[in-house]
């Protein structure tokens, strides 16, 4: 068994990138490995409330994030500064997240066996 940290840095609806990353996350969880997600930079937009992806023919990936709990993926971390730099607050997000300061991100990454760059 290994612990996995998936680092997502692109905004929602970057082509099929998010869908395909979520597929990896779900497969890893299905292998019964402990999975955490870190949203960095524009990745924080993944969980922005009020997305209307159907208007541009995209899938509602924020709904998939909400379904992750079923697969025991509950540990979603967000970088505080990434959120602030984009004028967002934790209340703007559609899921409860754990907020971590930039200075502590390297320490967080060290706790995992596999840091999966997305």
């Amino acid at each position, binding site marked *: 068994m*290994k612990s996995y940290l998936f680092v997502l840095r692109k905004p929602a609806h970057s082509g099929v990138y998010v869908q*395909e990353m979520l597929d*990896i996350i779900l497969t*890893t969880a299905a*292998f019964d*490995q402990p999975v955490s997600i870190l949203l960095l930079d524009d990745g924080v937009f993944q969980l922005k409330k009020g997305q209307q992806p159907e208007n541009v023919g995209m899938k509602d990936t924020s709904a998939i994030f909400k379904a992750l709990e079923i697969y025991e993926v509950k540990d979603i971390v967000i970088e505080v500064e990434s959120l602030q730099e984009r004028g967002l607050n934790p209340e703007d997000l559609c899921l409860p997240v754990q907020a971590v300061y930039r200075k502590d991100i390297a320490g967080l990454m060290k706790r995992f066996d*596999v840091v999966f760059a997305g």
Partner: protein
Amino acid sequence: MKFAIQVNTSPYHSNTGQTAYQFIKAALALGHEVFRVFFYHDGVYHAFKYATPPDDELQITAQWSDLARRHQIDLVVCISAAQRRGLLCADEAKRQGKQDDDLAEGFRISGLGQLVEATLEADRFIVFG
């Protein structure tokens, strides 16, 4: 050391695939093992058999096929990423009622479980792109 590699970018949009290829060659030359190379996202474009670049350009797909042949490296293309982008092996094409046979020599098509297995087996997992 045992490496697992993921390639996420297409050959002509970025040079990270080439960086991955050079990394693998260097790792093998130093006696390391490459357990698997997994092609995902636009990385699946590396596996198109009928890519026909001009003769004076790098033959990227042929390079991978040659690497697989020489070093018995497992080159795996993700089935869902591949099908989405129109890369079908003969078997899968038949199942879909299509006539493709797009997969280059040395590659095989499989699922994401192969990627997770590779990350579990390897000492180091590196994502290119």
